[in-house]
């Protein structure tokens, strides 16, 4: 599957999309400039993220980034997640992100990092 098809697959069929039956934290996040709006549902145990799911709507970069984040984050420590940035997201979605789309790509990760800090 080429890189664009990979991105489109995650944007159209985002993984871990929907409200889970159980979660510890719910957070609404928004990119005010372009209308990307997500709700994150996060479960944490002993400083390890056990589950992340989400709902919402956004551009392909935003949705694909969030979809891949939910796959990468399972079982990771909060301290490790706090260090992630654009480089990780670009690796996950297999696409470089133009400067104007960085906020779209980082919406989910930044939202998760804000939860982890609390």
């Amino acid at each position: 599957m080429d890189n664009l098809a990979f991105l489109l697959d995650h944007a159209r069929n985002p993984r871990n999309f929907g409200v889970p039956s159980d979660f510890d934290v719910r957070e609404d996040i928004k990119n005010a400039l372009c209308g990307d709006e997500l709700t994150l549902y996060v479960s944490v145990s002993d400083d390890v993220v056990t589950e992340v799911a989400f709902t919402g709507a956004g551009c392909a970069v935003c949705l694909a980034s969030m979809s891949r984040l939910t796959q990468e984050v399972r079982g990771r420590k909060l301290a490790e997640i706090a260090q992630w940035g654009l480089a990780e997201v670009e690796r996950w979605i297999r696409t470089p992100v133009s400067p104007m789309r960085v906020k779209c790509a980082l919406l989910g990760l930044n939202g998760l990092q804000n939860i982890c800090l609390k």
Partner: protein
Amino acid sequence: MIYFDHAATTPIDEEVLLSMMEYERGGRGNPGRGLHAFAQRANDAVFLARQAVARFVSAEVDDVIFTKGTTESCNLVARGFASTRKNIVLTAFDHHATLFPWTKKAQEEGFEVRVIPAKEDWTLDFEAAARLIDVDTAIVIAPHVSNVTGTILPIAELGVLAHAVGAFLFVDAAQSVGHLPVSVRDLGCDGLAFSGHKMYGPMGAGVLVMNEKLRALVDPLLLGGGMFGDEQSAKYEAGTLNVTGIVGLAKACEMIEGRRVRNERGMAVETHSMRLLNDALSDRPAVELFVPPVEARSSIVSFGVRGVHAHDVAQSLADRGVAVRAGYHCAEPLAKLCRADGTVRASLGKSNTKEDVAGFLRTLDEVIALWTT
């Protein structure tokens, strides 16, 4: 590149650029601040530019004030305006440059904000305007052309409503000056603002026109050197003017007026290209349009591709050499009325041709196929 983003900014005209370079190379001075030849040259440049701008928009020379652009002009009026009346009237088509300063003023000073809505055909609800503008209205603010839908608003008619109750009319002409004739006299407005860079002139140079009645109620935004000069405008022009930019702005006014007087073909080509584009977009089932009836339409078309985020369409077009804008266009209320994620906006200019339209449509069809299959 196929450049369909003239509503964001326009390419600087070659004549304009040359006029600015010639001014800079001839010796720079600070107008009104010296007795030497360079200062006098700067005085003359600003004097002549003010006259050129006044001719361009059929305004009194004394009413022409130079600013950094439309946003500064709108903020100057909003921040400085004083009235004992109770409400101000905006429209659903207003840009953030008028929405934000006037709603902030209303919050701070207790004005009621009334908003004339848009109708389903993306024209102004004039019947609502007649109800909303009343004897307690201090000022009506409206764009001449919407930067989202391209709607040409009925400014002269709004002026009749406003003046009948003793209210002022202020017009954001940023999107009209490069594309339609703009006459303060014909529009019947008390104030008007526009930017050089939206009409093939430089960035950082704009105009605020305010008649004497409105000036009497508006305090200056900036205080500083040069504000006690002889011209009526001096009070609002504290600090050093962007003389080079003003020279370019005046040349842009002359260039556009000259083309309009000598040969209407430039405007006709833009209008024709716009109609081709609108007709072709409306033939594509995957595309939804947010445009008013043709008689109320300027050189802007907002659209969306069904099921595809506006930014994804615009990015894919950009990757293929087509420049448009996507999102809320600094006019979030109106853009969100169109679609939750805003729109894709194509905005044409004087150099766009039917070949550009054909190229745009070919590329858009590729992008639609990419995102919908």
